């Protein structure tokens, strides 16, 4: 069997990098497509979240007031745990099949490509949690106002989690004990998010209003969006060296 002669391509020329958005779009589209084709995995993560949240009342108490006090904290911590499940895979699968090297060698800025991957990660793991949490909060006898503040906080906190988690995932690429080490690395960094997020609900219940907490979360989100892609890209390059 002889293959036809390859076509003569046009003149060789270096390609200028096309700008940030193109890179983000490439990574976002690809990762979303890949996630969609492994739908079952996503379902499992969500199920994990639901199970963890349901376990707490079973292990502690069905008493209304106690549950109500615990609720925001449990929902926030469970969001963290669910995210930790999926974070190691953010770069590891690409690393394992050689795609990560191609990504790092692309003319698109690595920071842009990494941002696209992080965005896809949030859309597939963080956003479902944001949508699911208010429903689960009903188990904890939380009222409408609390649930709204909870959702608003998670809406900003879950992206921060994906952003910080990406740094951890890149740093621990290919290492033994990856998942546990990843958790150890990012949990301390995540503490302020937890405090402000769960604290927003407490504040609203205490009549103090959630604006302060939520704006601080917003500031954290802005800081993470700007800084994390650079740190994560640097970590990816270090891991590929």
């Amino acid at each position, binding site marked *: 069997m002889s293959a036809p002669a390859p076509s003569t391509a046009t003149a060789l020329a270096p390609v200028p990098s096309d700008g940030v958005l193109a890179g983000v779009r490439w990574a976002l589209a690809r990762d979303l497509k890949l996630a969609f084709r492994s739908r079952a995995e996503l379902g499992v993560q969500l199920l994990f979240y639901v199970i963890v949240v349901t376990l707490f009342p079973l292990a502690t108490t069905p008493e209304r007031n106690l549950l109500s006090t615990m609720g925001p904290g449990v929902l926030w911590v469970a969001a963290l745990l669910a995210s930790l499940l999926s974070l190691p895979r953010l770069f590891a699968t690409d690393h394992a099949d050689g795609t990560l090297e191609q990504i790092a060698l692309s003319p698109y800025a690595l920071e842009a490509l990494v941002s696209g991957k992080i965005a896809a990660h949030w859309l597939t793991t963080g956003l479902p949690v944001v949508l699911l949490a208010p429903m689960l909060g009903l188990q904890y006898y939380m009222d409408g106002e609390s649930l709204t503040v909870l959702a608003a906080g998670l809406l900003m906190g879950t992206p921060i989690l994906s952003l910080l988690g990406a740094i951890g995932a890149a740093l*621990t690429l290919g290492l033994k004990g990856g998942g546990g080490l990843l958790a*150890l690395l990012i949990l301390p*960094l995540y503490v*302020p998010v937890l*405090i402000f997020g769960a604290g927003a609900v407490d504040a609203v219940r*205490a009549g*103090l209003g959630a604006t302060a907490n939520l704006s*601080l979360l917003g500031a954290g989100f802005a800081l993470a969006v700007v800084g994390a892609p650079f740190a994560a890209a640097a*970590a990816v390059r*270090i891991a590929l060296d």
Partner: protein
Amino acid sequence: MSLNWFKLSSPASFYPVAGTLIPWFAWGAAILTAIGLWLGFAVAPTDFQQGEVYRIIFIHVPSAWLSMFLYVVMAFWGALALGFGTRLSGMMAQAIAPTGALMTFIALWTGALWGRPTWGTYWAWDARMTSELILLFLYLGIIALRQAIGDPRRADRACAVLSIVGVVNIPIIYFSVKWWNTLHQGASVKLTGTSMETTMLTGMLVMSFAFWFYSIAVVLARLRAIVLERERDAAWVRALPAVRAHAGVLR
């Protein structure tokens, strides 16, 4: 004596310099500790509210200060390692982490010992203690990451990225915990009234310098060990008398 700083930046040149510096800092630490402890335990007066127990601040506060200071220094050396790729900077950062973690641990431990008689509990979720605990986790994370990465160069750079991210986060962590704490009306730590007695302050400062000198001495000693380990194939290491005496034993 003019110092050519760039010449000092190679492990080979800094190794002997560190060796000569260590005894000075070690002795300095010992003397300052003696003075500080004397000031703290013999000279400073009994506290109005807390009695004799408060004296633990002469260890607690300096160790807490050092724990934070060392973290920043470690992040600084990490930044140098990342920016310039110099091996010695990475080795410095590697040498600092365990001592920083130790200081954090001492601060937490002495804090708990102080807490028991003062608040009735070994642990209270006040802003400082909680942030100190998280600082310990940060240190342990950096040490764990270094252990997990085999290649020293990759480890230097990965730990540098992590320390820098952590450094940015430390004030945020402290602030957030303080916020959370005031909201929860938790037990708050009051050092001693509103104005501190001069002798108490002097004692704490002297002890802080003592801890600082101790840290420098210990970090330099650890640095020398790290240099030997990481540069073991270099000719100058093989030529060291102590190494030559054991040559052949490990091969």
